[in-house]
């Protein structure tokens, strides 16, 4: 950018919301994935009009704009790969209203997901999407990445709850999509197109979310199995018997060992798989269902099944899952967290293939994930300063993507394509599929100013690069 352009932008923002110092530029150069890309200026908009003006300027000058929430993206979503302007949306957070009667929340994009959970629960309502980053991610980031968590199986992902948006288009127009009703078939469903578009098709400035009544009770069990195959059988059986758990979390042997090593809590370290299953509903239904699930797990050959009798025991069960993150850092400082997803029935096979990849590349690969919806999280623990190992990691990651697609699954169930997975998009959708997406992008953003360098691979970019 030219100096005069930066000066002109500065006239739109007071100094406490406009940063150009070296320390600030470096502070907006990263997200929770890889790489460091230095922007030229950071603006913190508070009003939709400010954004519209900046976007129009960017079109005039052909300068890239990168919207950013809390920068917890694991795929490089907000990274300013071509410099330009970072639009830090995190301070646009003044609206969080719950309309109890219509069961609707209206939120500014910078509101944290956990604050929506809390506000809804205070009035007996429920906003189900629960990415594990909820305490820190913005709802804007969640919308654009279509995030989800353990509750995805029963309650679906973020997109199921978005019924209306206010967006600034890539050319700077202010547009409303959808509305305040759950049913709405008026015109194209632009809301759905924008949700999950990773900030390529518009900047979200307000969202209307659908809420549901809060389930009254939860019941949780922890089961361990000799092998992922046994565990997979139990999962299929549970669903075949008409129980739809609110969460089914799976941990593999490497994960169990890591957790036990980090904080011994009596998990069987030779178990091939561990399953945490939770049902929600009424007191009576959860009591029934958890009993059912217990029997099913036992029939499927579980080594042990333990049902939580009270809140304390329930917390203890979930602790095993929450320990995974800190535990695996004992294995190395760098964690590459993938989210390849396969059809549910393919989980045992995917687990086996991951095991092979682990051995082939001699890496610390641990697997956990949301077994109910086939969304696994193979995590490679390494040290990014070890370039030799990082090369093997790159190959392993490529293998994971290819395996998921080969088994009829997808590159990403949660974290998005962003920068890291762009080279693989074509593998999943073919040239024609990717071209259709590109033509949508081009129609909406003819000057390619909004989040350029993401989703679609650059010339010559053929595989994941971490070094």
């Amino acid at each position: 950018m030219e100096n005069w352009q930066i000066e002109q932008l500065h006239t739109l923002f007071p100094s406490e919301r406009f940063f150009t110092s070296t320390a600030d530029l470096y502070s907006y150069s990263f997200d929770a994935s890889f790489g460091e890309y230095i922007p030229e200026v950071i603006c913190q908009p508070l009003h939709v009009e400010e954004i519209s003006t900046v976007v129009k300027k960017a079109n005039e000058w052909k300068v890239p704009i990168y919207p950013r929430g809390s920068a917890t993206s694991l795929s490089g979503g907000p990274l300013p790969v071509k410099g330009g302007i970072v639009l830090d949306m995190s301070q646009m957070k003044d609206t969080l209203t719950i309309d109890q009667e219509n069961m609707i929340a209206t939120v500014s994009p910078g509101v944290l997901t956990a604050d929506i959970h809390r506000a809804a629960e205070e009035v007996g309502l429920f906003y189900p999407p629960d990415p594990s980053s909820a305490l820190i991610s913005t709802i804007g980031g969640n919308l654009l990445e279509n995030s989800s968590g353990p509750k995805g199986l029963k309650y679906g992902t973020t997109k199921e709850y978005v019924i209306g948006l206010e967006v600034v288009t890539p050319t700077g127009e202010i547009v409303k999509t959808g509305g305040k009703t759950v049913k709405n078939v008026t015109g194209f469903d632009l809301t759905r197109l924008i949700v999950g578009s990773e900030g390529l098709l518009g900047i979200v400035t307000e969202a209307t979310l659908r809420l549901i009544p809060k389930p009254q009770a939860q019941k949780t069990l922890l089961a361990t199995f000799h092998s992922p195959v046994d565990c997979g059988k139990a999962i299929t059986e549970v669903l075949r018997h008409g129980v739809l758990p609110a969460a089914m979390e799976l941990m593999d042997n490497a994960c169990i060992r890591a957790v036990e090593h980090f904080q011994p809590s009596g998990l069987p370290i030779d178990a091939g798989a561990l399953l945490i299953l939770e049902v929600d509903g009424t007191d009576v239904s959860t009591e029934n269902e958890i009993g059912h699930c217990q029997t099913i797990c036992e029939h499927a050959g579980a080594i042990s099944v333990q049902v939580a009798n009270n809140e304390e025991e329930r917390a203890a069960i979930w602790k095993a899952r929450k320990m995974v993150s800190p535990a695996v850092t004992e294995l190395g400082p760098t964690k590459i967290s993938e989210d390849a997803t396969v059809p549910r029935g393919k989980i045992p096979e995917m687990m086996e293939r991951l095991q092979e990849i682990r051995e082939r590349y001699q890496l610390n690969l641990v697997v956990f994930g949301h077994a109910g919806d086939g969304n696994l999280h193979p995590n490679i623990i390494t040290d990014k300063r070890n370039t030799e190992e990082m090369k093997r990691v790159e190959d392993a990651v490529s293998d994971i993507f290819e395996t998921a697609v080969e088994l009829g699954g997808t590159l990403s169930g949660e974290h998005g394509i962003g920068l890291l997975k762009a080279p693989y998009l074509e593998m999943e959708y073919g040239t024609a599929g990717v071209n259709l997406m590109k033509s949508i992008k081009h129609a909406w953003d003819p000057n390619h100013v909004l989040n350029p360098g993401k989703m679609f691979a650059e010339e010559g970019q053929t595989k994941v690069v971490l070094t």
Partner: protein
Amino acid sequence: MTNTQPHTSKLHELAYDATNQCIQCGYCLPSCPTYISMGQESASPRGRINLVKAAAEGKIDVTKDLAEPIDLCLGCRACETACPVNVPYAHILESAKEVITENEQEAGKTAKIKRLTLQHVFTNSNLMRMGGNFIWLYQVTGVQKVAAKMGLLDKFSPAMAALEHVMPTVERPGKRPTRGTWLRAYGTTTATVSFFTGCISDAVMNKTNRRSVELLRTVGCDVYIPKTQNCCGALHSHQGDHKTAVTLAKENIEAFEEVQTDYIVNNAGGCGASLQEYEHLLTNEDSNWQKRARLFSARNKDISEILVDCSPLPFKKNGPAVVTYQPSCHLTNVQKVTEAPRQLLKQIPGTQFVEMGQSDTCCASGGIYNLLHHEEANKILDHKMDFARATKAQVMIMSNPGCLLQMRLGIKRAGLDEEMEGMHLVDLLAELCDIP
């Protein structure tokens, strides 16, 4: 622009590995008071860690780029408690401060007031006590000249001037409990303790210290106050003066080995945290020092822990209708003492304990942060006072002298001085047990 200055390589050596432990997940952001008040990534723990990393890689300049964001950190360490992967933030912070300080000195920059004052005043507890005496004189006689002579009060103005109004009354020097002799328990002895007086507390909160000793004796402790003890060194390591901090630590370890007791007791969350971390501070010393440090820290306790163990306290009268509590960050995040002070407050007859919203966020006293960054500190403080007001408490309790002064300032700024009083935990408990 890679730069291979000696300070860059020193920072690399001290903290680069630690910065690489950060996975940039951002979990620490909502817990950081400076991020909440300033709203920019360079004022967040994740931002600061990344800047230290960039400086260690020689990408940014230690003085020009790194010093300010680091200076604006409160050192409250709430980010450490929030971090899921245990990034050693304090170590990163202190390494950065050390290198920044050295670099400034080399560059021949006029040493800042803070460091002058630190080295010359806080290392010398006699001088500090004298300072306390002067504050006492100042308070009873109102002679401004005395303060001017000390040169302490007006150097920090206007921040100091603001704090001065909230200073507790300092007692006549003669009332200080004697050092170097056993002060026996009133009744049967249940434990023996050495009392750590702290330098600032000893100077300006000597009444609280005296009452701490009296409370301990009342609940059955034989108390010994080692003579040669000194400042804990917290202020020095927080300001990048690692060398002095190590010297002070060694002096204190020696002082408290003189008489063996069950516990070393302090009433200042900040000092206690620093005593707790002597082992870490002395990691580069020989194994004998490390062992002595480990034994020292193992005996270290906050006074609330001892008082809870000796509960119930012999209360003589009812307390105020409502009390609330602003914990000391270092008591919470370093010593991990969170329940004991609350348990004591819940025992007070006739008193309801009300938890204050966001009580775990720092009050921006942060050692001497409120003296060095007056405006930023006030912004954070005023935000906190909104939650304080909502508790409708008559008394707000603190467990560290810095927090006490800061919250009294907050009460004054919020115009609550008619309704609410800020007190040290010990002072309230002592009053209700009829200890003058």
